């Protein structure tokens, strides 16, 4: 494997558009960075901010949330809900010095395998340039208690 830093990105893909887009990308043998690890959710609207925080805290260098294009959501407008939530989350993360590129929202319809693949490549390069996130050292310690509290709220599976 190459010496360069290989970021790990957790992707939350909605079952109807972006997950199928990823399926299509594969079926079409479109090659893209293997750094994104997909988790299927029924709708991007299901992506709870705590999922994102959890992923970053557990060692991911970035998180991609992918859903249907606005207006094409299988659940009418779950993706719009996701969008609203996304902005709130970004503000939060900005305060903790988490770079913008690390958490991205992407629209990819079931027919847009290439769009998703390109998004993954782009994001991988951006984060490669940023380097590892090292949540525990950087975000956690520097900002002291701030995020810590929130993160403590983001429960470990067993605690739920």
């Amino acid at each position, binding site marked *: *494997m190459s010496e360069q*830093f*290989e*970021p*790990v990105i*957790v992707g939350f893909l909605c079952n109807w*558009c972006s*997950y*199928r887009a*990823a*399926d*299509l*990308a*594969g*079926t079409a*043998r479109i*090659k*893209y*960075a*293997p*750094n994104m*690890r*997909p*988790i*299927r*959710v*029924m*709708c991007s*609207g*299901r992506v*709870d901010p*705590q*999922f994102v925080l*959890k*992923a970053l805290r*557990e*060692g*991911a*260098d970035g998180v991609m949330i992918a859903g*249907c294009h606005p*207006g*094409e959501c*299988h*659940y*009418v*407008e*779950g993706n719009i*809900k996701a969008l609203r*939530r996304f902005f709130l989350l970004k503000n939060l993360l900005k305060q903790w010095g988490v770079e913008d590129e690390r958490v991205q929202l992407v629209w990819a*319809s*079931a*027919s847009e395998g290439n769009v998703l693949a390109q998004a993954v490549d782009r994001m991988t390069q951006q984060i490669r340039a940023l380097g*590892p996130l090292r*949540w*525990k*050292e950087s975000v956690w310690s520097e900002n002291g208690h701030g995020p810590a509290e929130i993160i403590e709220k983001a*429960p*470990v*599976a067993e605690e*739920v």
Partner: protein
Amino acid sequence: MSEERVGVYVCHCGTNIAGVVDVVEVARWAGEQPNVVCARDYKFMCSSLGQELIEEDIKQNGLTRIVVAACSPHMHEKTFRGATQRGGLNPYFFEMANIREHNSWATNDKEMATQKAKALVNAAVQRVVYHQPLEPLQVQINSNTLIVGGGIAGISAALELANAGYHVYLVEREPSIGGHMAQLDKTFPTLDCSACILTPKMVDVGQHPNITLWSWSEVENVSGYIGNFSVTVRKKARYVNEDLCTGCGICEEKCPRKVIDEVFEAGLSYRKAIYRPFPQAVPKYPVLDPANCTYFERGKCKACQILCPTGAIDFEQQDQLITVEVGNIILATGYDLFDARRIPQYGYGRLANVFSSLEFERMVNAAGPTGGKIVLRDGVTQPQSVAIIHCVGSRDKNYNEYCSKVCCMYSLKFAHLVHERLPEAEVFNFYIDMRTPGKGYEEFYHRLLHEGTHFIRGRVAEVTDAARLPGEEGKLIIQAEDTLIGRQRRIPVDMVILSAGIQARDDSKEIAHLFGLGCDFDGFFVERHPKLDPVATMTEGVMIAGACQGPKDIPDSVSQGAAAAARVASLISQGTVLMEPVRASINAELCSGCRICNNLCPYNAIVFHADRKVSEVITALCQGCGTCVAACPSAAITGAHFTNQQVLSEIEGILWDVRQPQAEPV
């Protein structure tokens, strides 16, 4: 640490996966993970042997949870849930890791692919231990069916279902059913007359006791889910009382107002303000078009009303909203013809004797504006030479990138009709590639070669009236490269026909949204599986047929219409259908009654009990998106099969190799 006993199965999928991912290593490694009691790799997990492997292990090793790392769950989740069930476990004690589409097919980096595969397997393992037993929901299927679009696809579907004894509501936007096929003269490659084979079917539809036909109508609203849709149809005011009208046609005859018929006659001829698009229209009742009616404009005339023998004209008539309950829906909304005005260099709309393919269809039609005579725009002169330009708006990234599939064949048909009607005329077909796959199609091409059509392999660069060389004056000059001789050629002709492509209806996106479907990039409806399920869609209970799914000729549209009907019939005869139990539920204990979820739900599936100050999910209406789950501030809502616990542990699992903060990512 839970005490579930997990079995992991890593599929080679021949070399599809094993060629990139070190499946043996993944299986070995998986065997060492907590809870995993057995891990195997196998050539083809989806084979009956592969499935038996699972069933055996459940019995032998007392497995309680199953993970299969193979293709996409959209491909084989059902298959392996079956195996899990046959092994004696609840089918939802299964989880799939997609290491083919999302991994081995998407990269060549074997090392990272293997690493990713481990992550995906581990995620599945850590998730599956928290799976809860679920029972699929069973819903009744209403035996009525809504069919949208009365073209040949919709007609075939309607007749199949009606003959099977099921009731059909057929909704057509235009005044008559028949669609584009009704506009055609001959059909390729057999050249039988379109009307002769279509109109009997139209009549059957009109008279069938099991078919309720609403023409001049559009679907306004759709709610519900498979088996139980509720559909609202707007029956636009016809200003004609259908109970009194005999379809005698006197109103049309006497109407003083002539307008260009942009729809049925493709703008090549006129209709009255009150009209039937064509004599064999079904239903027979005319439609009054208020936008062009003298009475509606100036408050006087009423010629139609005065002269109608049965007093059927009703200027007061209003739109009607009708709501019906149906179990299934078939969309057969057809296509639009590419608008050749978008390619200025072909001169359509600017150069009089450039015609669109639909204009020409009407012209050669015996019942059309010229009674089947092929003439120039002046209505009298017969062309001595005709150029037919293929791929207009098709196979072109500037317009539609796809091949429209039918143009080569109908262009050949045009060439034949010109030879037939004007034996003296020369015909030039300009093509990029001649595409004639289909029964008897290639033979038809050979027939045209025999008839002496000039075939020039070259996409036309421009059509101009700017004469340059002798013999070009007063002609339309086709400039193209004859790629087979590698030379630029200018061919003067009298008439040009643009073989415009097929494209999705301009409102297909809105229609798709109305019925909860996906549209592909070009606006065609997305089928459930491009090969194995071309009639069903991602939305249970909604089928698609005909050109709304992609360019199709008549035989294909008929087959798909019938196929869609068969799919519906089989659902109806099953009586009930099982649905994914992926639904939300609210724990009344934890619910604070904040009502945030109430407005979030796109299906109004959440009701608020003011008395108890708690919200509740109506399971039948919930579609399981989980938006409410994510939004609930007091974590009172659980999304079955996507619980926080399941997803959070999946996250932990997928990050197995980077979870130690000090460790550098690989």
